[in-house]
């Protein structure tokens, strides 16, 4: 047995993958041994999901070799991967909601008698499998949509086991589970491991990694930076490996007098997303906001811009309570949102730079309902120069700009609006380093001019480098606040992953 666990079931070596100018994977390697639970961790954008998509046959790598069960595979397809015994349990449940448990387990592998489905065998076998692996008496005729999330996950795993899976890949399997369900899932995984099945476990939750994994591959900037035994290394060392400490001169220094409160949020809640969040944003202040995927951060931002409605709580601007029922009202209150999905919400790729910049503040460009070309030229050219947007002319299409310049156009739209409250959602995603620094400088300048900035980022160095304070949301609650002096990437990541902050908790 010990010898067997040493042999590799999956070996991925020197995997590289580019998306246009973005290097998603650079010589990344991942080795999974038989009968081990293997953790895969890294900050957002480190390349975790890309390497998993390569393994799943969804993305074709530009370079590298993949061996599964000792056999080198060159053209991996989702069907082939499954045939080789590698099964993926996705974050979003990929089951047909109106199928029965038995149908879901045997989907595309139904037992047959001649051309007909053998429904009796299907029901019997699924009940046996559930009983055998999970000691679970789930009725084979129950509908998938009536099951709990944990039960659905078990049905997915059972489906893989019914096809004699050798490797299970679980992407954030605990995200929607309560503690009790997490415990039972872990019991199942350990049993499967003892039966010789390998598990790849992808999670942002560090304690879970420490609890369940036999070994962990840490990824950073598109490559693997080490394989560690979490029981020996501990969370701190893994987190340190995840984070690039080289911050250098990325974050320009600034000193600004912080003024009066501009935005005050009191007890804001939205059912199923976040609870009882209170925060204050002052003039001249840059406040960070972070949380893992599904923590409720995104939903909170949606509410602040009127894209969603909170179920409880109040929002006040300059001490006056306001209703933010739609983006129309939010923009009217001079709130700006730089959305994360630039293509869908930030800039209209098919319109010109001038069209985009003027869009949210047309009243400034208008003369009796008509657009004044002279005003447009003056304001837009001023902003193009001011933000050094690299383009030959304001009438050029935004589509033809680089990512960083597109983002500057999206920001310029709000500068044209003379916004006072800037909510920036991942402002430097898919932006090159040079433009990144320009965006940071711009943020500092806006703050110096009296704007209040809420910076949402999953790039923790950015928060540490830029923010006067950083707020951390964990599972829907604002659980911690770090001053500039207190904030470092390790403690932010620990807080976002739900780890108790020792000093703060003990003194509190």
């Amino acid at each position, binding site marked *: 047995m010990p010898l067997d666990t040493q042999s590799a079931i999956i070996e991925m070596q020197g995997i590289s993958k580019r998306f246009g100018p973005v290097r998603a994977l650079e010589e990344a390697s991942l080795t999974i041994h038989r009968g081990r639970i293997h953790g895969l961790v890294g900050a957002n954008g480190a390349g975790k999901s890309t390497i998993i998509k390569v393994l799943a046959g969804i993305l074709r790598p530009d370079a590298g070799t993949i061996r599964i069960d000792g056999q080198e595979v060159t053209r991996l397809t989702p069907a082939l991967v499954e045939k080789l015994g590698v099964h993926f349990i996705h974050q979003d449940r990929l089951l047909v909601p109106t199928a029965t448990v038995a149908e879901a387990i045997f989907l595309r592998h139904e037992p047959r008698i001649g051309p007909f489905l053998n429904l009796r065998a299907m029901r019997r076998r699924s009940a046996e499998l559930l009983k055998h692996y999970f000691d679970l008496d789930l009725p084979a005729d129950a509908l998938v949509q009536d099951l709990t999330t944990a039960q659905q996950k078990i049905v997915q795993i059972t489906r893989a086991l019914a096809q004699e899976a050798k490797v299970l890949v679980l992407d954030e399997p605990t995200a929607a589970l309560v503690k009790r369900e997490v415990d039972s899932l872990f019991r199942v995984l350990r049993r499967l491991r003892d039966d010789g099945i390998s598990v790849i476990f992808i999670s942002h939750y560090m304690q879970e990694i420490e609890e369940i994994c036999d070994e962990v591959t840490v990824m950073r900037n598109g490559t693997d930076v080490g394989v560690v035994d979490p029981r020996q290394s501990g969370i701190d060392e893994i987190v340190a490996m995840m984070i690039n400490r080289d911050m250098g001169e990325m974050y320009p220094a600034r000193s600004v007098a912080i003024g009066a409160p501009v935005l005050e949020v009191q007890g804001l809640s939205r059912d199923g997303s976040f609870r009882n969040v209170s925060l204050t944003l002052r003039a001249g202040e840059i406040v960070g906001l972070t949380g893992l995927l599904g923590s409720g951060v995104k939903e909170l931002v949606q509410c602040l811009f009127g894209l969603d409605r909170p179920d409880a709580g109040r929002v006040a601007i300059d001490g006056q309570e306001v209703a933010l029922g739609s983006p129309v009202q939010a923009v*009217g209150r001079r709130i700006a949102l730089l959305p994360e999905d630039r293509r869908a919400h*930030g800039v*209209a790729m098919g319109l010109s730079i001038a069209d985009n910049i*003027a*869009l949210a503040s047309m009243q400034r460009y208008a003369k009796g309902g*008509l657009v004044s070309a002279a005003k447009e030229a003056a304001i837009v050219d001023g902003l193009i120069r001011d933000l050094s947007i690299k383009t030959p002319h304001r009438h050029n*299409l935004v589509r033809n700009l680089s990512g960083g310049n597109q983002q500057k156009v999206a920001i310029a739209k709000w500068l044209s609006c003379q916004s006072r409250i800037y909510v920036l959602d991942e402002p430097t995603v898919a932006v090159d380093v040079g433009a990144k620094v320009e965006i940071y400088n711009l943020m500092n300048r806006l703050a110096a001019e009296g704007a209040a900035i809420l910076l949402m980022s999953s790039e923790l160095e950015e928060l540490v480098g830029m923010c006067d304070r950083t707020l951390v949301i964990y599972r829907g609650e604002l659980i911690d606040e770090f001053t500039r002096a207190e904030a470092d990437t390790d403690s932010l990541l620990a807080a976002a992953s739900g780890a108790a902050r020792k000093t703060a908790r003990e003194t509190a």
Partner: protein
Amino acid sequence: MLNLSTPMPIEERLKAISNYAVIFALVVIVAGFAIAAPSFLTGANLYNLILNNVVMLAIVAIAMTIVVSSGGIDLSVGVSVDMASMAFIMLLKAGVFVGTALFAGIGAALVVGLINAILITRLRISPFLATLGILFIGQSVQKIASGGGKPVYLANAKFAPTFNAIVKSEVLGIPTPMLILAAIAIAVYVLLHKSVFGRYIRALGAQPGVAWYSGIRVPFHTSLVYIIAAGLCGVTGILLSSTVKSYVPLSGDGYLLDAIGACFIGTTISAQRRPSVLGTLIGVLLLAVTRNGLLLVGWNFYWQQVGIGLLVFAVLALSFGLRGRGH
């Protein structure tokens, strides 16, 4: 701005030429018919062509252009035309004052637009399905109201001066319907290409998410688009019923496909393949001239349709083919 100091690569040149493919086609077709059918290039033919085939279609096509610019489609343009026509004729017949009947006619079309707007912005039905539903309902309503589709004729002498004043009069030697088209074309050109509202429409058409995230009142502006379009179709309804001195149920439906065709043929004159008033007018001319010319050279109605279809393919193949396969 184009950098003129370096020569344009050949692909760029082809792309620039491709924008004029449809104008080139129009010139060739006009020249061709001028040779093939001696009666084509006569004043009387062109006058009739424009008054009877171009003006009414062009107004509907311009209405369609507004809707398509906003990223939508209006399949109920014919219903708006017919509702205006029905209200106008029936009220005249009932002895209502001409001015009142005119306003009621346009008003009836605006109601169609308002219903479209409510379906699209409140019930969030896609423009295609919402206006398709109104097309079906509008057709049935007309059949019910007209006793199974019987036309309402007002051919007696009492109404002749009214209709003549609308479609046969001239101002400074130019027929009134042409002036109406010119006024509408200029107004919509300014609206789409020069006004603040036009910017919002274009943003909606280009990327509705960005418009919403920029604080634009998307439902309000979308509603206006469908209401304005229906009102313009109402103008065609008045001109149509005044020309034929009657209300003929479902006669507006004939404009639907030509209007969509003209609008999309017109997008080929823009580098970004966007709808524009000028492009749509060229598209209308292309369709109307071809149909008229084929009639004059003696093709029957069914072969005319084949000719139009081939023409559309030819223009689009020329226009898109020149752009290169990369697009």
